């Protein structure tokens, strides 16, 4: 009994031992899209860790114990706030026992703030598939939303670390400047294809479609979260033939074989896309490079005549 008490006492001492003074703001981002913008804004004043890998399905990330440790030591967590991470993040935050990351605390940064989510269901009904109750959470494919997130992150970082405010402001200015210049370029690139249709594997592209005037409303999944079935794919193929749709986009974690089968039957092109920097080769450089890749890849595919 005595031994146990001694051990417990030692543990308590360790727990209250002050940490080595940490100069940098320790930020954990749930997904690499938020993480990459956090890095742009935080610059050398922050350490940004990311939980989900860019190549994996962000809906189904394992709540690994190592994430608990990362969150336990973080000054801030950056998450989507739109239920994309609902299957794994809440439990991790409970176990992390870090009051800085509490919902409502300055260290809990929900990126959906200030963003109008699309496709908010009016009724909740899972017979329609695994729909997100607060709207479609894949909002970062619209650079206008990335701009809002960057602004929000800069404000949040300044609130947490006022002494580096100038750096965050300067980084924000640099990032939005680059983004604005690129935005014009991207819109010009896709302008000739206004109204054209694209097929996607999962309904994750409404923001991209709206921004660039494309139509992405035909999916290889019959319903969100339900794997493609031959019957549904047959319908998709017939619709693609009827409407002369010749581009299919596939994320790195989705079944490319399914998309290729549909492509073979329609003469369409399969384009590898990603919503996360690093998800496909040539997007490792961050959000702007990823959007650049996306716009160019889609424009190139649309330019090809079927």
């Amino acid at each position: 009994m005595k031994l146990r008490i001694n051990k417990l006492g030692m543990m308590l001492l360790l727990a209250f031992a002050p940490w080595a003074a940490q100069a940098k703001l320790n930020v954990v981002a749930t997904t690499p899209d938020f993480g990459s913008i956090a890095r742009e804004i935080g610059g050398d004043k922050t350490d940004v860790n990311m939980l989900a890998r860019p190549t994996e399905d962000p809906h189904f990330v394992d709540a690994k114990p190592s994430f608990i440790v990362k969150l336990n030591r973080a000054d801030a967590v950056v998450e989507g706030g739109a239920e994309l991470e609902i299957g794994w993040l809440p439990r991790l935050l409970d176990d992390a026992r870090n009051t800085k990351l509490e919902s409502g605390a300055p260290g809990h940064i929900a990126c959906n703030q200030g963003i109008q989510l699309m496709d908010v269901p009016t009724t909740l009904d899972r017979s329609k598939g695994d729909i997100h109750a607060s709207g479609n959470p894949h909002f970062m494919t619209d650079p206008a939303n990335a701009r809002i997130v960057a602004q929000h992150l800069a404000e949040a970082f300044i609130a947490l670390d006022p002494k580096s405010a100038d750096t965050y402001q300067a980084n924000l200015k640099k990032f939005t400047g680059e983004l604005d210049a690129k935005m014009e370029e991207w819109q010009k690139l896709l302008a000739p294809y206004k109204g054209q249709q694209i097929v996607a594997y999962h309904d994750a592209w409404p923001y991209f479609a709206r921004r660039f005037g494309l139509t992405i409303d035909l999916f290889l999944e019959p319903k969100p979260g339900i794997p493609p079935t031959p019957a549904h794919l047959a319908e998709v193929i017939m619709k693609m033939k009827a409407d002369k749709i010749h581009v299919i986009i596939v994320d790195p974690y989705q079944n490319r074989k399914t998309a290729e089968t549909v492509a073979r039957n329609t003469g369409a092109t399969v384009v590898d896309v990603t919503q996360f920097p690093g998800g496909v080769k040539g997007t490792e450089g961050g959000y702007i490079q990823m959007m650049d890749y996306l716009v160019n890849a889609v424009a190139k595919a649309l330019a090809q005549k079927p």
Partner: protein
Amino acid sequence: MAPTDAGFPEKNVMKFSKLMGWSSAFCLGATLLQAQETNEVEQLKQQLKEATANFDRVIKEQRQIIDSLNHRLDVVQAAMTNLPASAPPVTAEQEQKNRAAAEEKAKLEQQLAAELGTNVAPSMATPAVPLAPAWTPAQPMTVARAGSSYMNISFDTLMVVGSSTAHDPSAQLELGDHDPIKRGFSLRNAEIAVDGAVDPYFKGFGNIVLKLDQNNQTSIELEEAYMVTTALPGNLQVKAGQFFANFGRQNSQHPHTWAFVDDPIILTREFGPDGLRSVAAQVSYLLPLPFYTEAFLGILDGQGGTSFSFRNPGDPDSQGVNRFHGRMTIDRVLEGPQDLVYVPRLASSFELTDQQTLVVGASGAFGPNDTGPHSRTEIYGVDMYWKWKSAHANEGFPFVSWQTEGLFSRFGAAADPTATVPGPLPAENLHDWGMYSQVLWGFKPHWVAGLRGEYADGDTGAFDANDVFRGQRTRISPGLTWFPSEFSKIRLQYNYDHGEFFGDQHSVWMQFEFLLGAHGAHKF
């Protein structure tokens, strides 16, 4: 650059209402100015006439726009449904076309099934509903959604159908309380789970389980009801209430997260049909190490059937005397802190590679038992869980996981000189040990194949031949699970059982699960 795309139809509305506002202001102004000079009146009259004419013209224009939009909408809708706007009767030619299209679709479906190596799924797979219908004002308004309610609430049901060579599978083979209890159908777990934030300091969880017995009578139990602190300093967390003890991996998991239909043999032997749970308090501490290491200490009240190897009165014999491992039990009352059950645990986790995670743990449970005034029980366990998941995982697939637990116990059984089955029982230490090891392979999205092997044994005790919880047993269970979605599953499992006291037995079980509502996220 802010998203203003939705502003298009609004612009016309704005123009129109502005005009309305301006013209009404104009009218009001004209009335007030009546007493002014006549030439001014004439002037105003003229202006009013012009404004009215202008107003009428705009109305007429808007009406024309509305008519033309209505017309276009009709045409587009008609085109979408493949029917002319005025819907004339379907011609023979049209019908033939439709049939040809249907045939082409069926052919294509068969071809795709062959190419993708899948079966043509039944009707469920062909929703004729349009994809993502647009919102219209006629749709009902949202009443409740996540984040607008103070708690998650879910209802989860597990049902099993199957058969066994054993006449009564619950007698010797399936000893867990949520396991199938008979040939045919059993429903042993319908749980209502709630969770949410209590206030800024606590989270609360509740689990109420309903079960149907052999005679279809419903029994209800408060499986879990506890609160957890959220704001303690020093990496500490305290849990209090009724909950599953944090011993090993599976003891604290709810049946719907298990990889097999039934509870591992060694767990039912050490912790009884219900698992080790009690009214208790637990403190846990996340160690300041570069890798995950957490230390737990649970302090359990430890009385009753859910503290199986501890202060458990056991079951009544034919004379109505409560017995456990053959011994008459006494109703031990708490004499001091030494009569509580202590459950320490240490767990660590390592990222072996980017795709591989390992969790290892060691646990213990120490406390008194009810066979005598000074008799005590010790249980020790080690556990490990390894998982590989593809870097390109789609909905979490493919993956391979391997879980193993090993347990060892010493049950200090007191003497019972009055026992008649099989005769007077001596004081003896009953040693039990066992393990299970299971591998799961999520080979494609929504499909998991599993294999579990189990072994349990103990030293020989005086009462063993009559004790379903002792004696040597082995079990091999292959299984296949299909998850139509995240919220349902269908599982087929075969059990080969071999036991010292019942020989070879074979069972086949099929399990169904459905989950309604919002359910809290699960642990790794």
